């Protein structure tokens, strides 16, 4: 098993920069998520770590050893491809034993090992079948079998559930996570699905346009986004943004949105100009006594909670409130924001301003 460290890794395809100076560390045994929208450079980053693509610059360390220019076959990692890449001319058992045979393991020993793996994955009964007729889930298991059979230093998976039906994804993601916990192997998992990343990951790195936006444990990333992009990409509905102009001094803990004054965590950065007040939907309370008002434009009922869409003088806001709160479209209501959970962003750069609340998270990541 292995620790993997990426330092200032950059990848250019001709004039196009797919990955810009990324740095992060994956600890031994972690289930690590590479999260970001399509085309942001997740696959490219993973392929550089695996040795399928050479970085333009930067270093990649596996267990302290620089491997940036080493071929894939010498890195001792396993890769699960998005479309599984099972060899169609081989049956299930042969697909799984393929990496062992290529390393020169005797047939009998390989067969025994395949048997054990098949047991773990529950595919013993299909070992002699051709891979052509398998269901998506079984293909996925065979691909996993081929990856784990070798006891590699790390598993790399590129959207491994992307090819499966929605209902099956849930099941398979639990299976994957259970398998990881059982083997305790370092796993790097690429996904564009923020829910999947939050559910499965020990740690998440969020990428956008080839840039690492933030990196840390899911809870911290959710609560204390480093950029507006992260705030919006994670969470459903995403964080609300209220735009305002103002001046914030170091040490202040109040901002004014128009007439209304709000408490915020004590600022460690000052700013002057276009700012964004960020608050998660579940941290908004409806309170008729509150001075800050909004008009309800939609109500979406979700069982125990409901999503209220409101128009305010600083933009549209979505609040997640208990279903027992009675609101109707057209009504004007007062809003309160939980002062401990607010983030203030520089609207031009998109970066969050450092406060006492998010300092720990930002310095760590």
């Amino acid at each position, binding site marked *: 098993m292995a620790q993997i460290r990426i330092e200032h890794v950059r990848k250019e395809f001709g004039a196009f920069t797919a990955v810009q100076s990324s740095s992060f560390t994956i600890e031994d045994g972690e289930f690590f998520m590479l999260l970001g929208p399509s085309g942001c450079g997740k696959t490219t980053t993973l392929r550089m770590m*695996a*040795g*399928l693509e050479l970085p333009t610059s930067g270093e990649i360390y596996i267990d302290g050893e620089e491997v940036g220019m080493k*071929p*894939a*076959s010498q890195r001792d*990692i*396993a*890769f699960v*491809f*998005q*479309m599984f*890449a099972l*060899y*169609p*001319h081989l049956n299930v058992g042969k697909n799984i034993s*393929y*990496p062992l045979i*290529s*390393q020169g393991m005797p047939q009998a020993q390989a067969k025994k090992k395949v048997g054990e793996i098949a047991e773990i994955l529950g595919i013993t009964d299909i070992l002699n079948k051709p891979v*052509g007729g398998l269901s998506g889930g079984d293909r996925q298991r065979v691909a996993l079998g*081929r990856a784990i059979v*070798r006891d590699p230093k790390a598993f790399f998976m590129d959207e491994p559930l992307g090819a499966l039906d929605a209902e099956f994804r849930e099941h398979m993601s639990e299976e994957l996570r259970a398998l990881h916990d059982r083997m305790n192997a370092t796993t790097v998992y690429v996904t564009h699905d923020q829910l999947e990343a939050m559910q499965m990951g020990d740690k998440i790195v969020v990428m956008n346009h080839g840039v690492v936006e933030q990196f840390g444990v899911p809870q911290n990333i959710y609560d204390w986004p480093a950029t507006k992009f992260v705030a919006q990409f994670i969470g459903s509905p995403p964080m609300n943004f209220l735009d305002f102009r103002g001046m914030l001094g170091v040490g202040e803990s109040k901002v004014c949105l128009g007439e209304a004054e709000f408490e915020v965590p004590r600022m460690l950065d000052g700013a002057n100009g276009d700012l964004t007040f960020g608050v998660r939907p579940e941290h908004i309370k409806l309170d008729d006594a509150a001075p800050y008002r909004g008009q309800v434009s939609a109500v979406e009922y979700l069982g125990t909670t409901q999503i209220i869409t409101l128009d305010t003088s600083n933009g549209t806001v979505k609040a997640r409130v208990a279903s027992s709160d009675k609101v109707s479209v057209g009504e004007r209501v007062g809003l309160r924001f939980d002062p401990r959970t607010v983030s203030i962003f520089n609207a031009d750069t998109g970066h969050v301003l450092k406060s006492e609340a998010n300092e720990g998270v930002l310095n760590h990541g």
Partner: protein
Amino acid sequence: MSFSVTEPTNGTKWFAGILVVAYAVITIIPLLWIIATGLKSPADSISYPPVVVFEPTLEGYVNLFTDRTRATEDMLEEAGPPQTWYEEIARERGTIISGPSRYGERFLNSVIIGFGSTALCMILGTAAAYAFSRFRVPLKDDLLFFILSTRMMPPIAVAIPIFLMFRNLGLNDTHLGMILLYTAVNLSLSVWLLKGFIDEIPIEYEEAALIDGYTRFQAFYKVVLPQAATGIASTAIFCLIFAWNEYAFAVLLTSGTAQTAPPFIPNIIGVNGKDWPAVAAGATIFLVPVMVFTVLLRKHLLRGITFGAVRK
């Protein structure tokens, strides 16, 4: 446009069946005619109206494989009674077998040149197609267009320069020369067809093999080749059919050592131009290798000749 999703009625099935059978009969009749002519006597073969029911004889085949001389009384006496069934057939026509004909050699030349050029074409074509499909080749599109452009005129249009070139290089009437020539003609089509097939094989298979510990060449050999088998087989059939049947270059560039069967077969007819059964026998035997080759590779063909449009 949409396709009917209802089951065809019995009437339509019958109609389709009759059409297919009719088409098959029309295309097979010339073939049967040749096979039948090979088994006729020379007289039956040119009788008019043509005879359909006749007494089969192997005379055509005997004439195909032997050289004969008209026998005088002395010669017959000297030779004694015929020892074999084919000598007997020759004697009936008042001739004596003086030795084997050259058909065997010519046929062997066709085999060497046809299969040799097909093999060479597959090796070069697969390697080039793989490179074009997988690597960053500078000026890739221009090169591919250039390769295709070599096939834009009929090959025989350059017969005279090739004739001169071959004479200067000493390639006239050699197996090597003909193999190179047919390979050159077939290569452009092969590269294009094979590139299409290799493009369809997801690159992840090779990458998986690389990660599993194989070298690039091993990945090509053990992963790409088995999956490209369909494409290689169908491309090989196209190449073989061209090289096997090619007539014009063979007439121009070969006369002895390396002459293939197609320019030889018309000569079999003999000086008085009557020996159609021997010609038909020569043509019949000539058909066999391509047919065997095609039948052996037929399971690859359906997917192959539709250029991957039909999926399993």
